[in-house]
């Protein structure tokens, strides 16, 4: 769900609550009306703040579309500028709605802190949320994501999990991820992806298997990549080779993405949406896996040498006009 759809739902939910119980048909009609003129339905400061944040994030994402055209210096300059602007936007939103979780979360991300400091800030936010709202628990409906007003807090957990991974705290990252999966089993924020990478890094085959079966062995770029890393680390080379083959055949351009990782900008606050097994998805997976892959220094060289993995990567680069 993108932030704009989320804004619409927030506005519709709040208005619907004010109007009393609406029939599904009436609610759908309300939803259409809100979508048409969201601004006219904003009467709560939290929603006002959310709307401003949604616009602020959209501005950043729009500006990022031209990043490929900028040289390194111009990119850094632009990035610094737009993150500073986002930080100001978050501060403004917080003035409107001091309890806006999204404003706090995005503010932390916009500050571009070192991973350790970012974790401190996120954990501080987590403590405040726990104090204000009580412990995070699964609702009677079964999935906390069903409540649009809980999304911010769930995102804090997803972000905590990823930041723990970035600071080499794999057990903690997995715990935050599992906690999120516990309250939101549908996992729209992809906590399972972070968990899969961490379990591979911790060489926890049992945990990895449990996670995999929990999601019906559905698989995705993270899980495929994590599987290769796990078997490689465990020294189970025939299994690692088979997993690598699976990764290469399922993930579009996975070989190229793994051997030529690219910089991926800060998630604001969600991981960008990507089609399953698309090149975009595997690019994200490789980016997130970077600390784990770096910890296995010969992993990429090994992958390159397996069958035609390296040749395929080079062919992929040539076909798509990417540098090698």
């Amino acid at each position, binding site marked *: 769900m993108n932030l704009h759809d989320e804004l619409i739902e927030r506005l519709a939910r709040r208005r619907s609550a004010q109007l009393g119980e609406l029939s599904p048909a009436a609610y759908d009609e309300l939803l259409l009306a809100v979508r048409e003129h969201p601004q006219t339905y904003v009467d709560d400061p939290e929603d006002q703040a959310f709307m401003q944040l949604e616009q602020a994030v959209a501005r950043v994402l729009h500006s990022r579309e031209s990043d490929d055209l900028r040289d390194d210096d111009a990119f850094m300059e632009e990035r610094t500028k737009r993150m500073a602007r986002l930080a100001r936007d978050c501060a403004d939103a917080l003035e409107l709605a001091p309890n806006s979780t999204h404003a706090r979360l995005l503010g932390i991300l916009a500050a571009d802190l*070192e*991973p*350790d400091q970012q*974790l401190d800030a996120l*954990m501080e936010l987590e403590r405040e949320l726990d104090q204000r709202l009580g412990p995070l628990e699964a609702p009677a409906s079964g999935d906390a994501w069903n409540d649009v007003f809980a999304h911010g807090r769930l995102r804090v957990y997803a972000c905590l999990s990823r930041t723990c991974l*970035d*600071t*080499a*705290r*794999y*057990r*903690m990252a997995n715990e935050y991820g599992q906690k999120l999966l516990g309250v939101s089993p549908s996992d729209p924020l992809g906590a399972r992806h972070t968990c899969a990478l961490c379990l591979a890094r*911790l*060489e926890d085959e049992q945990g990895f298997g449990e996670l995999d079966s929990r999601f019906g062995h559905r698989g995705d770029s993270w899980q495929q990549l994590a599987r290769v890393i796990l078997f*490689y*680390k*465990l*020294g189970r080379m025939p299994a690692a080779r088979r997993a690598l083959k699976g990764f290469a055949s399922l993930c579009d351009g996975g070989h190229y993405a793994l051997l030529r990782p690219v910089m991926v900008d800060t998630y604001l606050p969600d991981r960008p949406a990507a089609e399953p097994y698309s090149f975009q998805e595997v690019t994200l997976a490789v980016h997130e896996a*970077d*600390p784990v892959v770096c*910890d*296995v*220094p*010969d*992993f990429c*060289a*090994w992958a390159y040498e397996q069958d035609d993995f390296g040749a395929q990567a080079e062919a992929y680069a040539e076909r798509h006009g990417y540098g090698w």
Partner: protein
Amino acid sequence: MSYDPHREDYQRLGLRFARSLDGKDPAAATRAFASFGRRFSQNRDSLPQSDADRAFHLVAEATTLIDYELPFADDAHAEELIERGHRLLDEALALDERCHDALRMKQAAESTSFESYYDFLAKSADDVRAACEEARAQAHDESPERALLEADIAMRPYYRWLATQAGKAVICGRNREAIRLSEKLLELDPQDSSDVRFTCAIAYAKLEDEAGLDLFAAKTKPLVRAGTDDAWMQLSRVSLAHKRHDMREAQRLLAHLMATYPHASAALAAQKELPDGVFSRLAVAPFSEDELILAISEGTVLLQEGRDDSGRGVLGTWVARQTGLDGATEARR
């Protein structure tokens, strides 16, 4: 205690010499033995020795060049040291093709990656064990004390093989394997003459297995020197506290590490990464500054983890800052 090849060389020839005196009248034997030290250092060839003994002597010489002189040599001399070292290893292998130390040391230089070196060690480990056990079975000596030492010396090449393999497993990111190898070695050599428990502590920290490390620490408690944990164990504990975000505890543990070793702040700020000794972990004095430097170097796998722009790793950056010398070291760069 790590391995000192010159001491081992001395022990090997000493044993053989002592055996050659068996049956002689005690007074003559005592007189003959009095000359051993001088003959060992000045006239080796006059002492009884086998080709394996001669090969090991060359290994000891090569170790001096490669492990102890090379790290301090400038570029001009480095090349020459490497060449001389390898010539010695080749000679050792020509004398004794089963000189596993020489074989292992040569491969360390010839391997193009951590992985290929690790593979080499893993592939031959069982053969090395069989060969060492065969040598041990052949050991015979009238004196039970000497028999014990001879049996121990026969196994050392395999102990060093396993210890190296465990160390490389950690570097290759195979921490469970490193723990398995360490425990195997500790079972064979409970005195841990290889100090493989240092490597094992790091592997437990890498797996963030605090309970596993606690158990391991309890099991190896009799090996703790001077009642204080070594730098490897302490650094692993610092890393674990940092990894569970118990920053106050991490700080306390780091302060303890700094109190245990001299000049610890400088070493912890610099975090030098040294080449591993190819014969074995370098022999340094317990609880010396050098020992800490070695532990930090081997602890690179803990320090340089995570996403960190400085290139020092998340823990590395934090540790350097805690020393209060971080600014100074960065300014010097």
